């Protein structure tokens, strides 16, 4: 993993024993399937979205609509690819952080490219972590461990 912040958002640190619900966003079908498996193997419930707008819809952040059910859709973590056509992962991050309902939710950015300016930009916008693709099981286990506030071996 390239970079991370402390998990201080108390709203979003979970009770141990709870199953985290992760929203994974990636335009690439193979990567979606992989990240889903990686997360399932780390005992997470997973919803996938193929682009930013769909992700926002699921989070109940589509502008002009108040989705009463999904206002608190109980998503504990968003993990998104950076390079996506249309809305990039960075833009998705911004929209989440600008919303009143979802701004505390941790957002992890993934990218196949290790570009320091890109990483800094995302961290400055409030990303929880930046991860390099292809993701490894150990990276995801570490991530979910931290999310569930457990004692993890580093």
């Amino acid at each position, binding site marked *: 993993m390239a970079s991370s912040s402390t998990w201080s958002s108390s709203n979003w640190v979970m009770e141990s024993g709870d199953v985290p619900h992760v929203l994974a966003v990636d335009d*690439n*079908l*193979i*990567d979606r*399937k*992989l990240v889903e*498996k*990686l997360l399932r*193997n780390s005992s997470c419930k997973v919803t996938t979205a193929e682009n930013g707008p769909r992700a926002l819809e699921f989070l109940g952040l589509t502008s002009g609509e108040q989705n009463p059910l999904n206002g608190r859709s109980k998503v504990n973590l968003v993990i998104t690819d950076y*390079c996506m*056509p249309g809305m990039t992962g960075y833009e998705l991050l911004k929209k989440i952080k600008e919303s009143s309902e979802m701004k505390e939710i941790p957002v992890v950015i993934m990218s*196949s490219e290790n570009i320091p300016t890109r990483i800094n930009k995302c961290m400055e916008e409030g990303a929880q972590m930046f991860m390099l*693709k*292809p993701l*490894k*099981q150990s990276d995801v286990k570490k991530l979910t461990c931290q999310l569930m506030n457990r004692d993890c071996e580093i």
Partner: protein
Amino acid sequence: MDVMVQLQRQLFDYTASLFHEGFLDEQFNQLQQLQDESNPDFVVEVVTLFFEDAERLLNELTNALSQENIDFRRLDAHVHQLKGSSSSIGAQRIHTVCISFRNSCEEQNVEGCLKSLQQVKHEYSTVKSKLETLFKVRRSGPFLVRVLICNIEMTYGETDFGCRGVSVLGSVI
């Protein structure tokens, strides 16, 4: 000469050669490690998805390069996709060609792009056939397997294992 031991050895060596020759990298191991009882066909599923996706992208690339006015941004977007997918499944050689392909797109170098396209098609068909061979032989239940080996080219050194219609019962790695 225990046929099963030979077969296991062949399979092991064949797989190892794919890594050794750079067709596959560590990421493919990661994929294999993700496979478990809840998802016993995971590797085949993901790789099959990759084949479908790659073929679609190769068609798009061929199409894009045959246009009079080549849209290099669109071309690059497709190569980026292929680069990502191939990296995700550990198809190293394809990934490597995609890197130089992207450079040619950036430079708007038509010749370079055409050359890269040809290379990537070649690498794709090679790794596809090798992986299909691997899956054919590995398709098995946890313990007992009936392996029907017909026309499978698995050579390692001097041992040429090209048996037609030999059916073997036993356990395979």
